């Protein structure tokens, strides 16, 4: 009796998990299914999850109908530059906030991370005027440089740097090395997991960023993927097979990145979440 009760309980739990999982995954399967159908088979009623015959043409057509190659290139350039830049500035900042002992440090740090609460829509208009004044509209600079600095990234790395024992730092000081040596040869090499985590988060943020590129990019050839896909949708609004192929092409790189580096995603969320 006891055993079968346990069994029923387990069964119910699995059903809950399974229902949840189907809800999460099915839209993606539907996207891929539609993207592999032709205009004719996609709109057949009742719809089928399995495309037959499999129609690869959409994936070829979209590159011809819009400069998706160029959108990809732009997204990759912007995401990589933003990621590298933020890793550098944030690790500098995090080092100052964790390993340099100057008066007022912690107050300054709190003030800095408090600005995470400022909605982007507040600073966006003056930022746009600034970028216009610098003549960066339709340039990579506009997409990259404002995002090279981040209280969030500084916060994440500082949490990690704080956990590096002082004894390691002191040993360097006895040997006559300064902060620079300590930063470069002790703290950074020990912080690889945190740096990878931050790198992945920044890459994801940059890859998916939309409102700002929407505002500062007018020329089609400078659009990043999310803005480019909206441009594409505007022109082929009723061609769902094309749009689903384009959507899949936008989403899949990040899904792969996530599956490969899942541990870092989870750790990053836990690291910033629990101490928050």
């Amino acid at each position, binding site marked *: 009796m006891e055993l079968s009760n346990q069994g029923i309980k387990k069964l119910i739990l699995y059903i809950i998990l399974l229902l949840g999982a189907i809800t999460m995954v099915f839209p993606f399967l539907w996207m891929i299914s539609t993207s592999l159908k032709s205009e004719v088979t996609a709109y057949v009623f009742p719809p089928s999850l399995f495309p037959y015959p499999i129609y690869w043409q959409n994936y070829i057509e979209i590159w011809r109908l819009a400069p998706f190659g160029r959108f990809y290139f732009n997204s990759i350039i912007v995401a990589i530059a933003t990621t590298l830049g933020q890793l550098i500035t944030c690790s*500098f900042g995090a080092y100052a906030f964790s390993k340099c002992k100057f008066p007022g440090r912690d107050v300054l740090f709190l003030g800095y991370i408090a600005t995470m609460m400022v909605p982007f829509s507040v600073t966006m208009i003056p930022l746009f005027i600034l970028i216009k004044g610098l003549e960066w509209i339709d340039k990579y600079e506009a997409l990259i440089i404002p995002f090279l*600095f981040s209280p969030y990234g500084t916060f994440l790395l500082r949490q990690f740097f704080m956990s590096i024992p002082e004894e390691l730092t002191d040993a360097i000081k006895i040997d006559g090395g300064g902060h620079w040596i300590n930063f470069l040869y002790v703290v950074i090499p020990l912080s690889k997991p945190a740096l990878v985590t931050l790198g992945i988060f920044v890459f994801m943020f940059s890859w998916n960023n939309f409102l700002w590129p929407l505002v500062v990019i007018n020329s089609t050839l400078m659009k990043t993927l999310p803005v480019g896909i909206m441009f594409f*949708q505007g022109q082929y609004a009723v061609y769902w097979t094309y749009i689903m192929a384009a959507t899949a092409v936008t989403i899949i790189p990040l899904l792969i990145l996530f599956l490969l580096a899942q541990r870092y995603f989870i750790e990053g969320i836990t690291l910033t979440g629990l101490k928050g």
Partner: protein
Amino acid sequence: MKLKKSQRNELISGLLFLTPNLLGFIIFTAGPLIVSLYYSFTHFGVLSSPKFCGLENYRQLFSDVLFQKALINTLYYTVGVVIPLIILSLVLAVVLNMRLKGYLLFRTLYFLPVVTSTIAISLLWRWIYDTNLGLINYILSILQLSPIDWLGSTTWAMPSIILMSIWKGLGYNIVLYMAGLQSVPSQLYEAATIDGASEWQKFIRITIPLISPTTFFILIMSIISSFQVFEQTYVMTRGGPVYSTTTLVYYIYLNGFQWFKMGYASSIAWVLFSIILIITIIQWIFQKKWVFYYGA
């Protein structure tokens, strides 16, 4: 006041390490923040320079029906997303935390929507919500129900956007809750079991109070981000039909970049910022009443 030599060195190195961040912060955050406050007191189109007009923009907000609608829509969205998000992610995290076989695979699947672009996901859901050929109306037709114009009706457009946003945000909060659950000491459950407590009693009396710091964190973060919802409405409805999904950030975008009323847009942005600030402060004050830090 004189600093010792070692202290002075610390200060100088600290400032050097901070220079890139501080410069970037001043130019791209602090500066624009102050300028935006100034703009909010001006008439400012794109071609003209800003002209000071005192509180006029703010006064205009009181009689702006669209602004009020955007504010109500944003509140509707926030309540509609945050409450189900907290309940669903807590329940799923508790089930996942029982570590049944394959629980990590489930966690992975729940997390998939989190990493994807909201723009792409919103396009995908537009297709799912499509009135004639969409998946959801197909399911309704199997159940002998008549189709619904999900994104084209003033009643259903917002709930449709809310549903998608819950779907997208669930995995992130599940991961936070799972981390929170792991910090609940297992002795408490063991002691409760010896005292004859039921599963439900343990959940209500132990789990909920002990993970309240996580709940507090999720509550604050999800309210802040929900108040800034933009991409979903931009892609799925363009704020329509009849402004029924126009949110505050969408209205800021309309004013600032479609109608070129940048001063007015700035004043809306500051109202948004003030609301977020006030709600967050209120939550900090009230956390003492319900957030419980174990061992503290």
